[in-house]
């Protein structure tokens, strides 16, 4: 016998399957299943757990940018890439990434603020990011010149695997000298090791 819960999960799966990479928002799910959003979120979560727990499942459920989507499990990524003729290799410059990070965390933000923070003009990267659909104009600032304010898009959230903009990992405050730069990881480790030796051992 099929329970109501099972039926709802099955229905949700079939909807998500049809929706494909468009995905469905929670409110769409709720209205399609004709239940409250809380209950819809609960069903979606149970469906996700199902997928994760079943070792013979090749797909799972993810929430990116406010849209629930069925996606393949990460463990099959290599096999799928092998199956695709021209696997996409998107590239993005370091400059664009910096600008994107600044916009993501400080939005809405003007170009001048971005330039100031980076100490270098950011027109090129901004144009690229608009064209990639990761950022958009979110209106204009009051005051002289009424400069454009930039913010991130849902596509950004999706491509960067974020449920919502609130889910951005917290910025690492610069206070901890330890984590200085990437190349410095070695130095940090070295220093730690060195300090340990000093403390533990012969401190002549």
């Amino acid at each position, binding site marked *: 016998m099929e329970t109501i819960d099972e039926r709802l999960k099955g229905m949700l799966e079939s909807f998500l*399957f*049809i*929706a*494909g*990479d*468009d995905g469905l928002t929670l409110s769409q799910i709720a209205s399609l299943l004709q239940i409250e959003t809380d209950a819809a979120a609960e069903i979606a979560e149970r469906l996700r757990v199902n997928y994760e727990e079943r070792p013979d499942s090749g797909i799972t459920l*993810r929430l*990116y940018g406010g849209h629930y989507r*069925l*996606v*393949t*499990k*990460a463990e099959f*990524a290599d096999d799928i890439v*092998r*199956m*695709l*003729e*021209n696997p*996409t*290799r*998107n*590239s*993005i*410059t*370091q*400059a664009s*990434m*910096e600008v*994107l*990070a*600044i916009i*993501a*965390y400080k939005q809405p933000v003007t170009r001048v603020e971005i330039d100031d*923070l*980076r*100490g*270098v*003009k950011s027109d090129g990267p901004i144009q690229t990011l*608009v*064209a990639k*659909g990761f950022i*958009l*104009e979110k209106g204009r600032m009051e005051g002289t010149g009424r400069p454009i304010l930039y913010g991130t*898009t*849902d*596509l950004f959230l999706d*491509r*960067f*695997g974020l449920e919502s903009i609130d889910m951005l*990992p917290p*910025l*690492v405050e*610069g206070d901890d*000298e330890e*984590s*200085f*730069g*990437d*190349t410095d990881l070695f130095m940090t480790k070295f220093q730690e090791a060195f300090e340990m030796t000093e403390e533990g051992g012969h401190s002549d």
Partner: protein
Amino acid sequence: MTYKVKLEAFEGPLDLLLHLINRLEIDIYDIPMAELTNQYIEHLHAMRVLELDELSEYLVLAATLIEIKSKMLLPVHEGEALDEDSEFDFEEDPRDELVARLIEYKKYKEAANSLLESAEDRADHFTKLPGDLSEYGEVAVTIPEEKMNVFDLIGAFRKMLERKKLRAPLTANIVKTELSVSEKMDNIMISLERLGGSCDFESLFEREDIEDLVVTFLSLLELMKRLDIIVRQENNFGKMTVIVGGEETDGNNR
């Protein structure tokens, strides 16, 4: 759909400065201004040959560095500072503003890296095209007309381009999956496992293309060398049988 970062030398004067601080193992909270300024300007000289617009941005920071350096060289007028209640009373370290800028910049630079990692994880998950329901109508995922703008267009277009790539594939490439010897070795061991530990030598050479035959053969040789498998032949020119060698493997010999 991984995002690959193109490594460029520096993303601007602050980036260059951070690089120098790293390389010179300088404590960012106690920057030896003279040393850093010298290094920075030396790099500027190298860039000068190129005569590019960006140079001006680098020069602005150079000027700032020199200014800070000279401020630090000024003798501290102890008496003065005590006597007059001027703003010099609470004069800050001239480096403070620069340090604050560097730290702020570094924060976002690191955030960019962590975003990129997140994008890489995301790229391991693939999705499918929406089902084709065009016979029945459109899927009602709607954008209110008053809210739509050019960016919705761009978003829609980009998404479509990405889908196109997702769609292109399959038929052509599937036939020709090039395997490395080590992958093939894994595959042979997995097949053997599934077939109960032994199979006909010939059955391992299923596919027609020469490349696959060669790779399979090399893999078998390597597996024999490692004694992972044993090949038996009852008599000359007779059937050869491949058997999992030594003790029972658990199939997970990666």
